[in-house]
């Protein structure tokens, strides 16, 4: 089995596996964020649960961190390896004739997502780690000690229009990444093309609706704080 993950195809499986996890995570993240539009209380409850439940904090979170790092490190590694598989480039190459722009530029859409993740890390994750593990405040409450802080923090972040614009751009790239990535991950995992047409439609829907939803949330809070 160790030979398997060193083979080109084994790496495809691993890449697809990390991508599946990321897509599942994204869906879950969206499901919680969208609550903030309908019910601040429900959003607070869900955030507090995710932020303090041990299985999420000590099981899913490490898997997520590993998954993200594996995914983009492997993405870069494969990109470089694949570039090196053609030493002399074509003088004229018509890639648009046979493949989608999204499929040919996964590394660039991926880079844009990575840039966003750095911003996201600084914006939400670092303050969160600071509050919970450095200051040791696991209560999830505001300074008044009465109500939860999560909703307040979220809305506060989207006051700045520049941040909102950065979020929108990042999610457009995420959409482009998933336009190809969703069905690609299934193909890598060996899912047959008989089921592929429905899968394609479902994948495109996921790739549009989820990022669009995140964009909506950012803009909604920007105008309703």
């Amino acid at each position, binding site marked *: 089995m160790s030979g398997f993950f060193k083979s*080109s195809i084994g790496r*495809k499986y691993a890449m697809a596996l990390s991508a599946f996890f990321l897509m599942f995570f994204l869906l879950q993240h969206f499901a919680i964020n969208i609550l903030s539009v309908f019910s601040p209380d429900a959003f607070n409850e869900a955030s507090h649960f995710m932020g303090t439940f041990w299985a999420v904090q000590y099981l899913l979170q490490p898997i997520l961190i590993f998954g993200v790092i594996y995914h983009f490190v492997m993405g870069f590694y494969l990109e470089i390896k*694949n570039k090196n*598989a053609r030493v*002399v480039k*074509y003088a004229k190459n018509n890639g648009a*004739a046979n493949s989608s722009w999204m499929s040919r530029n996964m590394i660039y859409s991926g880079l844009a997502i990575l840039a966003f993740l750095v911003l996201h890390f600084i914006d939400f994750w670092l303050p969160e780690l600071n509050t919970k593990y450095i200051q040791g405040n696991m209560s999830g409450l505001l300074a008044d000690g009465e109500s939860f802080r999560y909703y307040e923090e979220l809305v506060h972040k989207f006051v700045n229009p520049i941040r909102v614009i950065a979020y929108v751009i990042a999610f457009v790239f995420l959409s482009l990444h998933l336009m190809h990535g969703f069905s690609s991950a299934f193909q890598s995992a*060996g899912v*047959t093309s008989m089921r592929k047409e429905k899968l394609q439609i479902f994948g495109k829907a996921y790739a549009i609706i989820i990022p669009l939803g995140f964009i909506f949330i950012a803009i909604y809070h920007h105008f309703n704080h």
Partner: protein
Amino acid sequence: MNLTLKIWRQKDAQSKGKMVDYKVTEISEHMSFLEMMDVLNEQLINSGEEPVAFDHDCREGICGMCSMYINGEAHGPDRGVTTCQLHMRMFKDGDTITIEPFRAKAFPVLKDLVVDRGAFDRIQHAGGYISVNTSGNTQDANSLPISKHAADEAMDAATCIGCGACVASCKNSSAMLFVGAKVSQYALLPQGQVEATDRVRNMVAQMDLEGFGNCTNTGACEVECPKGISLENIARMNRELLKSNF
């Protein structure tokens, strides 16, 4: 038609090579692309120049030799054809046509448009066969019942002519469509089961060794393949490799 051709000229495997411009005149739209190349070569020979070396054999789309990257696509702009089946009616009078060899580290250029596709042969040798006792008591192949569906799919995979257009078109120079087809052609049939585990492992290992890139499912290969080999074969190869580890 009068055409301008930009062709990759390279003296031998060690030389650097460059694009060179040529003009051809009075090309009939009924000619095949290779016949147009013949006209050019005759012209070159008559004027004492070195003709353009290119691979070809059957000139009817079955040998897979005629590798050319024409205007940025393997076998040119038409679909489901090899270069020998590409007609000049696909082009217009006054066009400039770029002609390059199939490019991949695993397909080194030998001269002009001729590349060494020996890597494909070595992948085949690694497992693209079944072992049959031919000492006189060979079983009749038809004594094994095979479903029509499996037979059709195996036949579709077996139509791969090993031309290398998939590798040439792939932005990653991946050989997975070729290897996927060769693995599938046996994986779908009862005769292929005995050696199935070793076959897929060895063929994939050889493919990796030859320096082909890794598939990212762009699907360019499927579009440019003259035989319409489907991506489904890559998915099947992936499943076969996974299965071979249990």
